[in-house]
């Protein structure tokens, strides 16, 4: 939950180029960001500006930039790493078969085209003439090697739940790969497009180099040097298969954890761009040499409950409904995020067409309704309330601040919440083991909408640790239906219904989704906020 703090929605990106936000605009955007209609209005303006400017100025080649990262990648292994900062680096160095465009549409990358002859078979035609940074030509054997290794990544990589149900990878010819699925699994395309766990590396690479600190990909930038806790140097891949890209000669990704240092770096010109908080945007917005990029994170804040059937009062769905009805999400948004966040369903806002619209969340599913909450508590026979401990991540502070607001709000229905802020290592251990009553945490980006419901996968680790006492037949069967159904049109209603179930039965309590900001120096053109929280925008960005 922790490290994935940076996912962004290009759809609500505003002020992409040539315009910085004033404080008033910020507040207004925060308030207006309610309805999808408002989002659409924001989009219109932003897209218009971006497109017009792109057409006006022809991109140039050359020059290097320094980008400040907020935390250290720790290691750069292509497979089985779960660190968001590492993903920021690997997404510039490696590629997968597919990619996402700025609105999460799946587009070709190392595969030029693909076919799905039946629900258990995927065929990919590979791009011709691609070379790895080491000079080795790319072919189907590399794809087989990579996909096979992703299933059980070598240490320190960790087997994760996102690997699709691929039974075998068949090399048909040097430029054709066929995936045979053990069962229908609609997550394949999203898994490949996300790239986070699905990079393609040359066959046998793990035997040749220490991939924690070295790399050999096909991406637009080559890894020159990774100095842990300090910086990563990237240089243009002159042999990149797309001759127009990248435009920059090089990038230095510098770790600067301290926000004030990043702000000072932007002002002084020592760095060309970085991620900042709302507060810093307000300070920096007036600087004519800087441009503010605004987007949505796909890292929604959520309250988890362990439901073990051991007699805890919130084992009763009515109590959980009361808890959600007593939570005033707008107050969380105002008090914790200064108005700069949106309501979030179990699928976060901005994740394509999948999430329940903001208006419906506000008017129905996540409506603050204290009388109803009190009634539900009374119906459940617990009007007198109970005591519970709510663990929160101590840093960043917003998790604990949310917990504190919830504590005050739930006092109204006589629930006595004790907030317990925990350092991340301890929090993560408790989270994995289900050693908590309630937790204030966050959930992250997924390659496929099904990923947002994987906590409820009865075969999964989370379900065993948290939900031994929670069973919802409809949820489980829809979860599998969604996985088996390849057609997006047919999947939409399934995921709509899944969200409705979660937002009425409340096995988990999604709360809000903070907005996300990056600030860049104006000399850096064409940068955008990538949905997956990486700096992919730097691939096409250029220096004036």
């Amino acid at each position, binding site marked *: 939950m922790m*490290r994935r703090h940076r996912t962004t929605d290009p759809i609500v990106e505003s002020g992409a180029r040539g315009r910085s936000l004033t404080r008033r605009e910020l507040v207004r955007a925060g308030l207006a960001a309610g309805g999808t209609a408002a989002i659409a209005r924001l989009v219109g303006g932003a897209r218009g500006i971006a497109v017009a400017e792109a057409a006006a100025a022809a991109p140039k080649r050359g020059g290097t930039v320094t980008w400040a990262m907020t935390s250290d990648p720790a*290691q750069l292994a292509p497979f089985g790493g*779960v660190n968001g900062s590492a993903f920021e680096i690997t997404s510039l160095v490696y590629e997968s078969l597919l990619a996402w465009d700025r609105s999460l549409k799946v587009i070709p990358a190392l595969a030029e085209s693909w076919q799905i002859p039946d629900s258990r078979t995927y065929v990919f035609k590979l791009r011709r003439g691609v070379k790895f940074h080491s000079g080795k030509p790319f072919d189907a054997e590399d794809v087989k090697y990579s996909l096979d290794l992703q299933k059980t990544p070598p240490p320190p990589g960790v087997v994760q739940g996102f690997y699709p149900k691929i039974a075998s990878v068949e090399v048909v010819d040097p430029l054709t790969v066929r995936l045979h699925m053990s069962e229908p699994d609609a997550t394949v395309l999203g898994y490949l497009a996300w790239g986070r766990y699905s990079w393609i590396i040359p066959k046998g690479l793990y035997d040749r180099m220490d991939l924690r600190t070295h790399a050999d990909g096909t991406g637009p930038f080559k890894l020159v040097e990774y100095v*842990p806790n300090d910086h990563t140097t990237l240089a243009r891949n002159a042999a990149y298969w797309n001759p127009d890209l990248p435009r920059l000669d090089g990038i230095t990704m510098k770790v600067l954890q301290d926000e004030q*240092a990043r702000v000072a770096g932007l002002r002084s010109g020592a760095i060309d761009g970085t991620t900042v908080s709302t507060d810093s945007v307000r300070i920096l917005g007036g600087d004519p040499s800087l441009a503010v990029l605004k987007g949505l994170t796909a890292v929604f804040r959520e309250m988890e409950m362990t439901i073990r059937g051991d007699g805890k009062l919130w084992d009763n769905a009515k109590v959980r409904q009361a808890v959600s009805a007593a939570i005033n999400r707008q107050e969380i948004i105002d008090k914790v995020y200064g108005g700069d966040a949106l309501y979030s369903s179990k699928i976060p806002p901005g994740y394509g067409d999948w999430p329940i619209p903001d208006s419906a969340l506000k008017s129905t599913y996540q409506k603050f309704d204290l009388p109803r909450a009190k009634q539900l508590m009374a119906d459940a026979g617990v009007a007198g309330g109970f005591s519970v401990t709510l663990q929160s991540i101590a840093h960043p502070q917003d998790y604990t601040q949310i917990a504190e607001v919830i504590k005050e709000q739930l006092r109204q229905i006589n629930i006595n919440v004790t907030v317990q802020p925990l350092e991340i290592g*301890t929090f993560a*251990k408790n989270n994995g083991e289900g050693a908590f009553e309630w937790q204030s945490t966050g959930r992250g980006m997924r390659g496929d909408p099904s990923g947002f419901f994987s906590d409820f996968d009865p075969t999964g*680790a989370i379900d065993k640790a948290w939900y031994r006492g929670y069973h919802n037949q409809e949820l489980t069967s829809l979860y599998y239906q969604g996985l088996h159904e390849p057609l997006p049109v047919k999947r939409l209603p399934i995921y709509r219904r899944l969200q409705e179930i979660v937002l009425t039965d409340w096995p988990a309590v999604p709360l809000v989704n903070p907005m996300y900001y990056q600030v860049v120096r104006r000399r850096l053109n064409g940068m955008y906020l990538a949905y997956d929280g990486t700096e992919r925008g730097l691939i096409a960005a250029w220096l004036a």
Partner: protein
Amino acid sequence: MTRYVAGRLLLVIPTLLGMSLLIFALVRLLPGDVVDAMLTGDVGASAGAKAAVRRALGLADPLPVQYVKLIEGVLSGRLGASLTSGEPISGIMARAIPITGELAVLAVVLATAVGIPLGVLSAVRRNTWADLIARIAGLAGLSVPNFWFATLALLVGSLVFHWIPPVTWIPPWQDLWGNLRQMAIPAVAISVYLMANVMRMTRGTMLEVLGLDYIRTARAKGASARSVVFRHALRNSLIPVITVIGFQVGNLMGGATVVEVIFGLPGMGYTLVQGIFGRDYPVIEISAMFLAAVFVFINLLVDLLYGVVDPRIAPA
């Protein structure tokens, strides 16, 4: 003298051993391990998968075995590798120690060069304007946290001069001038407290010494004011000052963490804190043991320095 030094050196061995045990135990008492920290619960890794990673990283062995391996490694010079990046600990230390060492040396030099003369001036010109200003500055220096000073320096630098120190570490052996430009502000930031401390300590002991009989005697026999202050008084005032500086050098080796984080300098403190967040056991253990060893040796050095400054202390 030789026997004294040898005795003190021998005492260092059990001290360091006890310390290593303490550090090892404390680190392992932290809830969660590197696997928990890497996974943070969100990718649906099964308990079996986590156990496999633990085995691969050597964390499945019984704790006493792990401790013995650690000590063996330290004694044989095989420090192991980071559990997350796989980088050899020796490489991490080789990067971190020069940074923090340089910061500490610069800070001590600065603090001594400014603090001692100011303290002397303040004592000799007691209750004058100069004294008053020096004392107020000293009080301010003691009260200002170094991270506040660092942040303020960055703010002023970026707003007024549109300049901040270069953000990526420049080794002095590659570019000494660039390195000094980078280190100057962080060094000042961490030396402010020490400077004030040295100033106040020098002033206090100088005042005490200046009132003693032998100073009156020196004056009476006609020694110049300069000679009285510097040859007779200052030298005798330095012992507590050296204690303060020595103690602070140890502190500075590990205590410059916040300033290192602010300026993005991957020194000892930064490395240690990152290691703790990531539960990177070898990194934490080795850097903590190194810092503790520095402390022990600096204390020893300070004891020996007493003898140089004041021959009466030199053990027979």
